[in-house]
């Protein structure tokens, strides 16, 4: 098999995940896109490992070992990420990352249209829970 097939598919999947990370608003959808990016890297690792295990004289199968490690770390990441998203949702009542602007720097005086009312509710909720 030509090596370009898995490499190109991996690049396209990575860029799809990149678009999802940048364009999505819901935090869980952002986590899904991160999973897509990790899977693209996994496909590249496996393809290059299969190529090198036949082309090289001696191989450590490092690509497949790293793929297994990446899968395990991705599972840990999704667990922690979902725990954080759920904690944020409990405190703030939303999982839209556009509205979590507490640590944002810059022009605080002119929030965007529609941001003022939910922000006020959110701070009220945060104070009520503490």
């Amino acid at each position: 098999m030509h090596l370009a097939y898995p490499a190109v598919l991996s690049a396209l999947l990575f860029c799809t995940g990149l678009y999802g990370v940048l364009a999505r608003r819901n935090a869980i959808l952002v986590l899904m896109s991160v999973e897509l990016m990790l899977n693209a890297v996994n496909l590249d690792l496996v393809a290059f490992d299969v190529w090198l295990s036949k082309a090289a004289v001696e191989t450590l199968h490092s690509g497949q070992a790293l793929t297994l490690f990446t899968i395990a770390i991705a599972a840990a990441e999704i667990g922690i990420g979902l725990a954080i998203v759920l904690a944020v949702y409990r405190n703030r009542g939303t999982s839209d990352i556009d509205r979590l602007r507490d640590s944002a720097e810059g022009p605080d005086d002119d929030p965007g249209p529609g941001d003022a009312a939910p922000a006020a509710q959110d701070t009220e909720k945060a104070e009520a829970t503490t």
Partner: protein
Amino acid sequence: MSLAAQTHGFLSPTGVEIAFLLVGLVTFGAALVSVTTRQLVHAALWLVVALGGLAVEYLLLTAEFIAWVQVLIYVGSVVVLLLFGLMLTKAPIGRSPDADSGNRWAALTVAVAAAAALVWVVVDAFRATWIDLDGAAAGSTKVTGASLFQNWVLPFEALSVLLLAALVGAIVLSRKAKATAAASSAVADAPGGRAAKEEVR
């Protein structure tokens, strides 16, 4: 590899290549739908198709063990976790008009530029490289296990410590919210209060 490259041709793809191409098209299409659909649950379900397609690609690359690990962990647990997360955050069933943020055109520009650059570089770099899929499978369970427990034992054990840390971290993140919920009954009025208790339970 140069000798192998002489015997191959672009215009005579093998059966494995055709299968890889078709499954790759399905995978890429499912990934595209997953990041662009406006129905949140459908995004998770299309992600299942994309991850399953990747498992088939691993099988076509003769990496059997990785393929089954992919099916078990990603399709089996990660997607279920994501669906539970969507349910616990009360994701709207049906179309939600604000699934994409305002910077989607900038994101599209960045993604298309990155895709063009990556595809160009990768195709240019590996134009004459061929994977030899004949012979013994490169990623059978025996080979993978042997290499994992001969050469990669220390990272493997470190990974188990990391998983333990992640487990403890997730429990701590969940229990802290439960303590505040027990302290003040006001959290029950919050939209996520009931879901939080169910999740902790």
